């Protein structure tokens, strides 16, 4: 089985994977809810960190808990908990960011039987010089709670190891992203998405091995498909791989992304400057910012544009989860920025499930618009 198939398999059997891991390592699994959750610390505690994601099926269990204008991503995630699919979790954590996911966390805490729960008070004024010192102290609280729960000390050594592992993972994934710069990318957007989402579900030691294999394979990999136009995907959370696959079949390739389940999540490494804890804190304060915690367009937009240029995109798919207000604020401004740089955009709004017919028409029309000559 190739690396990509393995990622796909983990995605399809994520709950089984986590439970098998538990058995094999006689270990514990901790779920996390927002990409600001410090995975390094969780890993250093000996637990397997897994991201809590939805299943994109119609469900009718969350309305009782979350008002319908809470973003579908948050509702879908809570539904999984309410349906008992995450009953194997030993713990759950969430970094203070967006009030929608916060709703998921609050309700999870009260209505899903997960033994260990910890809310990390992530400073939301990331531009303040006061943020990193606070982050360090908040992480100390988290570490103390984890130590108490697992009965195991989290040493600097363990933290350093986790940093090394995650940094390596980030580096390797970035190398895979480099291949997407090629004129005929040897890997599709959907496959890359599978890779990144799998990194949020798997033991990284294993994921890294797969990445190394993949990197060996990529130089000679040829895809039997029409790669079409080069697109970028930008927006809030996005793990609807079925959708991306449908889209790429219409004659385009997603060559780069900027979203919470993709590059925005993993791009920044922990810079080794001071002690491990301060370094991790600095990463989560200075990382590629999510609009949920930023009141400045510029830092994010500059990076988005740089990505768009480096990967030579021909059009951008700007999307949001329905009702995702942090991103909705940015969208008109993002569109303006793209327009000023002659990159056409298509805006889509995602729900737990997607009416494929309508979306398909929009994407096809967008692709037709991008083609220089239709016929």
């Amino acid at each position: 089985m190739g690396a990509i198939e393995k990622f796909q398999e983990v995605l399809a059997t994520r709950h089984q994977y986590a439970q098998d891991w538990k058995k094999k390592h006689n270990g514990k699994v901790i779920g996390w809810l927002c990409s600001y959750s410090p995975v390094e610390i969780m890993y250093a505690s000996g637990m397997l960190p897994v991201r809590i994601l939805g299943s994109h099926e119609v469900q009718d269990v969350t309305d009782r808990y979350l008002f319908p204008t809470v973003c579908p991503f948050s509702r879908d995630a809570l539904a999984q908990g309410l349906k008992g699919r995450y009953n194997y979790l030993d713990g759950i954590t969430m970094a203070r960011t967006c009030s929608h996911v916060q709703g998921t966390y609050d309700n999870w805490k009260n209505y899903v039987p997960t033994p260990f729960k910890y809310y990390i008070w992530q400073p939301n004024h990331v531009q303040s010089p006061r943020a990193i010192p606070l982050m360090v102290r908040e992480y100390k609280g988290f570490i103390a709670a984890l130590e108490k729960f697992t009965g195991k000390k989290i040493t600097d050594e363990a933290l350093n190891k986790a940093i090394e592992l995650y940094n390596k993972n980030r580096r390797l994934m970035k190398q895979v992203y480099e291949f997407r710069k090629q004129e005929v990318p040897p890997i599709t957007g959907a496959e890359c998405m599978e890779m990144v989402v799998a990194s949020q579900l798997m033991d990284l030691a294993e994921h890294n091995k797969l990445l190394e294999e993949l990197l060996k394979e990529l130089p000679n990999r040829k895809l039997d498909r029409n790669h079409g136009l080069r697109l970028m995907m930008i927006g809030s959370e996005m793990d609807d791989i079925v959708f991306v696959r449908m889209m790429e079949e219409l004659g385009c390739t997603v060559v780069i992304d900027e979203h919470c389940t993709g590059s925005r999540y993993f791009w920044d490494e922990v810079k080794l400057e001071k002690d491990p804890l301060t370094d991790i804190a600095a990463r989560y304060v200075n990382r590629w910012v999510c609009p949920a915690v930023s009141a400045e367009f510029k830092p994010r937009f500059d990076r988005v544009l740089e990505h768009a240029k480096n990967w030579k995109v021909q059009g951008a798919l700007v999307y949001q989860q329905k009702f995702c207000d942090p991103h909705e604020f940015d969208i008109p401004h993002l569109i303006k920025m793209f327009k000023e740089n002659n990159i056409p955009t298509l805006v889509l709004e995602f729900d737990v499930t997607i009416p494929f017919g309508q979306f398909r028409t929009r994407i096809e029309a967008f692709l037709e618009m991008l083609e220089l000559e239709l016929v």
Partner: protein
Amino acid sequence: MITAGIDVGAKMIKVVIVKDNKIVARSINPTGFEPVETAEKTLGEAIKQAGITRKDVNKIFTTGAGRKAIPFADNNVTEVTADAKGTSYLFPSVRTIVDIGAEEARGISSDASGKVLDFSKNDKCAAGAGAFVESMSRALEVTVPLLIEISHKSTKEAPINATCAVFAESEVVSLIHSKIEKADIAHAVHDAIASRVSSMVRRIPIEKDVALIGGVANNTAIVEAMKKHLGVEIKVPEKPEYVSALGAALLAAA
């Protein structure tokens, strides 16, 4: 004591006459644009059926969306109150009532005496009600009874993702294109409604027994799907569309 309850629904007007705590007549007509006349006519039919005269009727209560428009009524009560009363008369053990009408669905939690403890209604979208079934039957080009019949024969799940009744129609068309069996689509339609209604009903506590009333309770495919979604047995009265009118008549006698 003889009392009448008139349910002035979005689609149908229903009348029930109760004599000494017993149902003696029922009648129904499409509401149309002249609800007062229709109500008068429907009441007349019921009176005839009961073998009494208009003067014998001691009191008339109305309920339903158009309840305030009937000048000859003595008083009016909301559908929620009427539903709870009517259901508790038919099934004293019921604590949760689901009423699905043409355009509105409701969940009601009540006690043994038929007093309302809590309720919820669909606010935003009409996607989870009888009108949805009707527009789907049109999209599939089959009658409602046939839609229900084939729905029971379904063997596969098919998704309907759009919440809007109008958009769902085109999803149905695209399901037909993807060569999905009509039976499976019919099933999906009912499933979609049941899912939306259950979602709304879940906002109130669901306690046993559960009853389904309103015109749509005649639809056996919906009843099946509701059972599956709520995970409980569901009682359906005979002539479920008359329960609100019955409740109004009983309240008039109180």
